[in-house]
């Protein structure tokens, strides 16, 4: 509840949140509207799109996303270790090497299993 450093951050957040809307609003106000049939075509040249926008994706994309989130967690653990490194010392280094080593087993498994091969 002691937000000493955060007002600037929240003001920035508010600004960043409102900025896109502001840009669109300015564009709406300033632009000159003379619509014709050709201007309403999806592309000026090229094919007309067909089918639905929501198509099914291949499962191989999913495998990459999945490995990404598990290594994302590894980052979450690496970050405090890096910040506190001077205070926690060699013991933490060894622990961290074990941690990364165990996770490296996972990526070796993925490699051997062919999960990272783009088919």
């Amino acid at each position, binding site marked *: *509840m002691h937000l000493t450093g955060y007002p600037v951050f929240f003001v920035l957040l508010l600004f960043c949140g409102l900025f896109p809307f502001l840009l669109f609003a300015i564009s709406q106000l300033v632009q000159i509207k003379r619509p014709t049939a050709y201007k309403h075509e999806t592309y000026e040249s090229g094919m007309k799109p067909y089918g639905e926008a929501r198509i099914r994706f291949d*499962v191989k994309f*999913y495998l990459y996303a*999945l490995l990404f*989130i*598990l290594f*994302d*967690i590894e980052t*979450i*653990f690496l970050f405090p270790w890096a910040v506190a490194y001077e205070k926690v010392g060699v013991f933490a280094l060894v622990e961290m090497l074990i941690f990364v080593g165990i996770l490296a087993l996972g990526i070796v498994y993925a490699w051997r299993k062919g999960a990272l091969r783009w088919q």
Partner: protein
Amino acid sequence: MMMSAEVAEVAAVAGLTVHHYLGVATILFGLGFAGVVSSRHLIRTLMCVELMLNAVNLVFVAINNHVNPSDLSGQVFAIFILTISAAEAAVGLAIVLALFKNTASVDVEDFSRLKW
């Protein structure tokens, strides 16, 4: 006694107590539970589980900050919950996708083979 009650009242009006956060976390947990019970889409069920885990995280952090701010154990617990929920989501979604590949359905009611 009289004095402290007055102080508590003033604090409740001006600032936030731990109960505010606990209340929001309870509402989120209840909504997540309602989603788990009512949803028929498997992925939505998983998302509602994530919602419940997030509510629990909020409780850990709020109580840590309001009860004993000099020991950040609550935040460390929250990081472990984060880890567990990521692992749960990865395996859970892999199961959902395997089910979808086998039966071409994500409806919870289609998977009733073990129902007695």
